[in-house]
């Protein structure tokens, strides 16, 4: 065995250690697309809230309960529809670009490390979803956007141990925005758009620039 073989062996060991603990195929392009869908969703939500204010004279963030067919219920249904569409579009883009990156790297999309990322994202996200359902149930509409940001940020920090470490900083930024938003409950949508839209686009662009550009694009 010569020196080159020893070096190869060491770098093999390092590669196997990294690959078996971290899922490295998360795609920056997916983040950019998710950010764009969040901004589009926020724009629609903003219009829905403005229409509601124009027709009822009330601020949408103050919605408490209202019976079926009431303007408040209608506002709730419209916002939920927009939120659901944004979620589907963002997840679809994230999965597609991650799948594409994994294929390009010649790695499996669903291996032990991907499962770890999924479980560690899912625990805070699922708790967050139930927590937000509780907020809505109690009519605390103004706290929904900050809660989304905080729980999403915690999920990212939690999963960062098993994927690209930079995601930790995105998580911390989301948590900070969520806390700021908590003290500005009438600007929830603004903070939401900043966190899910602008931050995702910035983060996605950085990740793409650092890890994904093809040699031809450099």
């Amino acid at each position, binding site marked *: 065995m*010569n*020196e080159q073989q*020893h*070096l190869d*062996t*060491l770098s*093999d*060991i390092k590669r*196997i*250690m990294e*690959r*078996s*603990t971290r899922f490295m195929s998360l795609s920056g392009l997916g983040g950019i697309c998710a950010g764009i869908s969040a901004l589009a969703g926020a724009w629609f939500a903003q219009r829905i809230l403005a229409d509601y204010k124009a027709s009822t004279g009330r601020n949408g963030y103050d919605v408490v309960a209202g019976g079926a067919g009431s303007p408040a219920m209608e506002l709730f249904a419209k916002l939920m529809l927009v939120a659901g569409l944004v979620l589907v579009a963002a997840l679809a883009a994230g999965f597609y670009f991650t799948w594409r990156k994994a294929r390009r790297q010649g790695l*499996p999309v669903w*291996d*032990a490390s991907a499962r770890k990322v999924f479980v560690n994202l899912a625990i805070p996200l699922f708790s967050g979803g139930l927590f937000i359902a509780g907020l809505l149930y109690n009519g605390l509409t103004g706290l929904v956007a900050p809660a989304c940001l905080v729980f999403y940020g915690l999920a990212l920090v939690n999963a960062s141990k098993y994927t690209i470490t930079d995601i930790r900083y995105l998580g911390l930024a989301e948590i900070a925005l969520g806390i700021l938003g908590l003290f500005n409950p009438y600007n929830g949508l603004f903070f939401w758009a900043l966190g899910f839209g602008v931050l995702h686009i910035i983060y996605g662009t950085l990740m793409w620039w650092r890890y994904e550009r093809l040699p031809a694009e450099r």
Partner: protein
Amino acid sequence: MNPIGNLNKIFESRIRLGVMSMLMVNEEISFNDLKEMLEVTDGNLASHLSTLEENGYLKVHKGFIGRKTNTTYSITKNGEKAFKSHLAALEAMIRFNQ
């Protein structure tokens, strides 16, 4: 001193070295995850795993998920020590040659 003497013969196989690398950084790994990561056949992997087990470098845990057997592996204290000194020997050889 010639550091070649510290290289561990058992780790000369790339597959055994790969198994040990994975076990160093994961508490427990299933047979299937090892197989997928190292891209080897069942029989080949099983024979390397039993060599490592015979040398006391890894522990086997047999469990069940429903009715399917689920065998997982973890590293032993001895295995960790052997792997670390093998790594140190590799590094020493690179320095020795420079």
